[in-house]
């Protein structure tokens, strides 16, 4: 209880700071229907077997997790009231809250925890989350003992919102394939603060208050209506006319700037630290001439990060110098930034022997982009890199699958894209660099085919180090090495924003998982 009061006041302070208005912090009140918009239809609502933000937002309301995180990366009790880590860091014992039940009234036991971890381990796309978990033992109904093959610091994040959902064994344990289970989208029985009411594809998801939720007095809201609205302009107009109280994951600079100009709306970029989306230019490090590190460095010096942030993103983003999101505790800002220096870029290429031809060009390169939002960043390279004598051809793909095929089969020179951190670096960051993760045909693996044994060793150590300080140091060194090698040039965060009507919404979800965390503390003002 102590932590939650702290959290509420912390969130209150953030709201005050953001709105810049000095008012008495409101006391949360119960009741009301929160109407929010989401930008797409999830495949289904079971986050144990489906990752991604479309399933994550409703999923975190339907299913509770063992722990939850605040806005400062601290783990707090949730379905587990306490936990204990053994001295060798290979055994973690969780004590579950007593009397917690699923939405159908059946008790939540340690056996459900063991079952959920097994299902996630077998079916969830992020294999590294529970790779180190050898078994979950259940000495009694309220105790779950995780046996680890090695220290696994990513465990807590993997057991939090949307990644470590606790699902009912008596429903999903019937032998059907959990990925295609009919109860993933119909009559969903969860463990979280809100119960399933209705899911109509391309229309809405409706959730209602779980009156038997294991945290007394929560959630505050009676109902959450998630309207599925694909058109960003329609969402923007809906917020403006008051029909929609809150939208998360808004990433168009013009919509964010528009909302900032409307008196009843607040736009905040808090709530995306864990998802951690970063814009990058990735290089095919095994293809001439990009296999030459000097060429990659020259290109990095020729790209003007400030221009991208100010002109294209209109000041809605944060500078990102490495592959770990700037909001993460592991982000190391003191790496080589490659600030704009065209003379240096030209000098590097001259020294490396790439002389300009009669047309002023040194060599041609192609650039691909994965989704429409990355198109301006791809097109920017054409005029910009011409200044250092690189002839850029922008290639448009026939949709995401076509781009994914090109890039994952290593048939590219440069590609621009956004990649997510997914909480702990072990889950979403390591995959980009590990030598043995250069897997043909798999998008968002190490498609750059970058390989540095030193980086591999540092990441391996950081992935098994429970001491926070030492982990930070390992990641810091790895980020510096990667910046030297520039397999990827990082520019800025993706400007994800939560836009909400501050006359209606209290305690907007601003923890590291944003709306993909339980919204039991969100309330409606009058």
């Amino acid at each position, binding site marked *: 209880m102590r932590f939650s009061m702290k959290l509420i006041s912390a969130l209150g302070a953030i709201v005050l700071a953001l709105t810049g208005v000095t008012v008495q912090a409101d006391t949360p009140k119960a009741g009301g229907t929160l109407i929010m918009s989401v930008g797409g239809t999830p495949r289904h609502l079971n986050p144990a077997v489906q990752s991604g933000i479309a399933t994550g937002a409703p999923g975190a309301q339907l299913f509770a997790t063992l722990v939850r995180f605040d806005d400062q990366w601290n783990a707090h009790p949730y379905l587990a009231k306490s936990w204990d880590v053994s001295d060798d860091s290979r055994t973690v014992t969780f004590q579950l809250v007593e009397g917690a039940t699923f939405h159908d009234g059946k008790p939540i036991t340690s056996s459900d925890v063991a079952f959920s971890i097994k299902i996630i381990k077998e079916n969830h796309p992020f294999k590294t989350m529970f790779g180190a978990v050898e078994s979950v033992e259940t000495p009694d109904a309220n105790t779950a003992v995780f046996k680890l093959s090695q220290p696994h610091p990513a465990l807590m994040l993997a057991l939090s919102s949307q990644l470590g959902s606790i699902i009912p064994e008596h429903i999903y344990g019937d032998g059907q394939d959990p990925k295609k289970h009919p109860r993933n989208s119909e009559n969903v029985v969860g463990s979280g603060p809100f119960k399933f009411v209705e899911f109509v*594809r391309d229309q809405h998801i409706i959730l209602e208050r779980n009156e038997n939720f294991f945290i007394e007095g929560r959630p505050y809201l009676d109902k959450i209506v998630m*309207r599925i609205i694909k058109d960003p302009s329609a969402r923007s*107009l809906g917020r403006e*006319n008051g029909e929609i109280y809150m939208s998360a994951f808004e990433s168009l600079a013009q919509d964010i700037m528009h909302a900032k100009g409307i008196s009843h709306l607040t736009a905040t970029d808090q709530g995306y630290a864990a998802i951690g989306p970063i814009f990058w230019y990735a290089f095919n490090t095994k293809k001439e001439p990009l296999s030459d590190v000097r060429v990659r460095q020259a290109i990095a010096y020729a790209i003007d990060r400030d221009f991208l942030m100010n002109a294209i993103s209109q000041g809605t983003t944060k500078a990102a110098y490495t592959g770990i999101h700037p909001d993460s505790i592991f982000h190391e800002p003191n790496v080589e930034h490659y600030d704009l220096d065209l003379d240096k870029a030209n000098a590097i290429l001259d020294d490396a022997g790439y002389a300009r031809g009669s047309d002023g060009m040194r060599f041609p390169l192609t650039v691909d982009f994965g989704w429409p939002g990355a198109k301006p960043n791809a097109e920017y390279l054409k005029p910009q890199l011409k200044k250092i004598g690189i002839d850029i051809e922008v290639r448009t793909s026939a*949709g*995401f699958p076509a781009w994914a095929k090109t890039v994952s089969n290593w048939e590219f020179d440069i590609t621009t894209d956004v990649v997510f951190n*997914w909480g702990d670096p072990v889950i*979403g960051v390591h*995959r980009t660099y590990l030598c043995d993760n250069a897997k043909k045909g798999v*998008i968002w693996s190490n498609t750059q085919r970058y390989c540095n044994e030193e980086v591999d060793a540092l990441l391996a150590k950081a992935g098994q180090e429970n001491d926070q300080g030492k982990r930070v140091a390992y990641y810091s060194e790895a980020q510096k090495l990667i910046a030297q090698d520039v397999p990827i040039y990082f520019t800025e965060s993706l400007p994800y924003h939560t836009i909400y009507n501050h006359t209606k919404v209290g305690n907007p979800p601003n923890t590291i998982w944003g709306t993909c965390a339980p919204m039991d503390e969100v309330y409606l003002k009058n």
Partner: protein
Amino acid sequence: MQFFIATVKRAGFGLVLLVAVLALNFVLMHIAPGDVADTIAQDAGGLDAEVMEQIRIDYGLDLPLWQQMAKYFWGVAQLDLGYSFYYNEPVTKLILEKLPATLLLVISAQVLSIFLGVMLGVMAARKPTGMTSHFVTVLSLVGYAAPVFWTGIMLIILFAVMVPIFPIGSMVDVSVEREGIAYAMDVLRHLVLPAVTLGSIFLALYSRLSRASMLDVLGSDYVRTAQAKGLSEFQVVYKHALRNALLPVVTTVGLVMSGIVSGAVLVETVFSWPGLGTLAVQSIIARDTPTILGILFFSSLVVVVANLLTDMVYRIIDPRIKTSGGSNL
């Protein structure tokens, strides 16, 4: 009997066409780079190699093309449109979920625009150089030239934000539970803006068409005869002339109705209208072959039915048209 033979012949042609459409699109979807495993990876924020391999095996994407096709057509022959890769639902269920919304939208827009369009067209034709005529010309040009998503957004800004009398989108207001008449009224309230938006293109088409063909008809001998007989202006225009002038409009309605899926995509997107168009676009992007083929199957059926209906309406309006062995298929 002649009519019966003609109908059977047409149904036969239709069937061959349907198989050809499905086969062609199957190959097209196969040629398109990337597959549904990539899309699933996109939604998931990344997948491991084994998981992607498993997805491809699960959905039979690892089989040679001819085997995949044979499997699919064997299913279709048994009236089973298969299972959507992306949504994990039977395709027939997905389509039947969406079909009513699309039909409601397209038919409302059609009725609205046929009625208004023909009325405006006739009014304009009676005084081809008058103010009404110019007004109709300008209106139809603007209506036809304006991109439909722009019209939609403008209508939302006008009637949902500045003067908030209509909602910005969706088909029902789910924050309040309604039943019976209240529910129908709620759907109607949500229907107005999208139907007007979609109708604006058709309105332009129909008013221009009926104006032109009315002008044509009004100058013909039998109209002069009717006037000479001393019939009232109303009778001449609406009973004698309009009936003949309507034929091209009916043809166009038939053509437009066959484009039921494609026509409404943009309107559905702007107004978050949960129809087939959105499903079609999503399944093309997702490389969800069974779903897109299922939608094509249904649209082909709509084309066949729309053609048959057009023929029947012809016969009612114009008794001169006898069954002539399907020469105008």
